[in-house]
């Protein structure tokens, strides 16, 4: 299914690793923009959220109170861009008193001990 629209060229496995909270710096927003652009090139894209990166997926963010754009809504659009693999590290959630139900999209949980294995399956790592 995934390869249906794929018309040649090299397809690589990309993982975007997000380790920073949103809003305080521009990293999280830039990462998401990069993912959306990358998705136009028919690559195999995953995102991994560890450390403070898990805060990016927190439900009910209201940065409009700071007159900033609520880009967290765009995570819900990723599926339409064929970015369907969103991984979140279980321990990072736990350390921050969060669980899966606090997140605004469906994710796949991955244990800290398995993160290296996930990275090992990738061709390219982009870190934000």
């Amino acid at each position, binding site marked *: 299914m995934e390869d249906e*629209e794929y018309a040649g060229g090299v397809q690589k496995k990309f993982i975007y690793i997000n380790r920073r909270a949103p809003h305080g710096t521009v990293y999280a927003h830039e990462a998401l923009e990069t993912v959306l652009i990358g998705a136009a090139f028919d690559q195999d894209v995953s995102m991994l959220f560890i450390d403070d990166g898990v805060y990016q997926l927190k439900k009910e963010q209201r940065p409009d109170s700071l007159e900033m754009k609520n*880009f967290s*809504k*765009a995570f*819900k659009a990723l599926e339409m861009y064929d970015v369907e693999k969103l991984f979140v590290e279980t321990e990072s959630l736990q350390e921050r008193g969060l669980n899966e139900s606090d997140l605004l999209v469906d994710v796949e949980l991955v244990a800290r001990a398995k993160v290296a294995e996930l990275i090992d399956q990738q061709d390219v790592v982009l870190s934000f």
Partner: protein
Amino acid sequence: MSSIEVDGKTLATDEEGYLENLSDWEPGVATVMAEIDDCELTDNHWEVINFLREYYEEYQIAPAVRVLTKAIGKKLGKEYGNGKYLYELYPYGPAKQACKYAGLPKPTGCV
């Protein structure tokens, strides 16, 4: 800075003609922008514009062409979910031109 005149109001745009402030949008904006491009807006054009505005409200991004095509097909029926239909309506590129008329920023991933 560039601008357009809509109903006696001067609205700021960037150098490519996209509205600077999304909140400045009103239907007249699309009509004026279309006139500049020598394009007359039909109901079919408006359907796409309205769709884009709803999409932006929900996801805060302007969709890439591929995503727009798929979504229009889902909403209006398969026969509309193809590049040909959208390019006939918006020959300058459905995402670019229609997003502009809808008051959205230039789509992410659009070169």
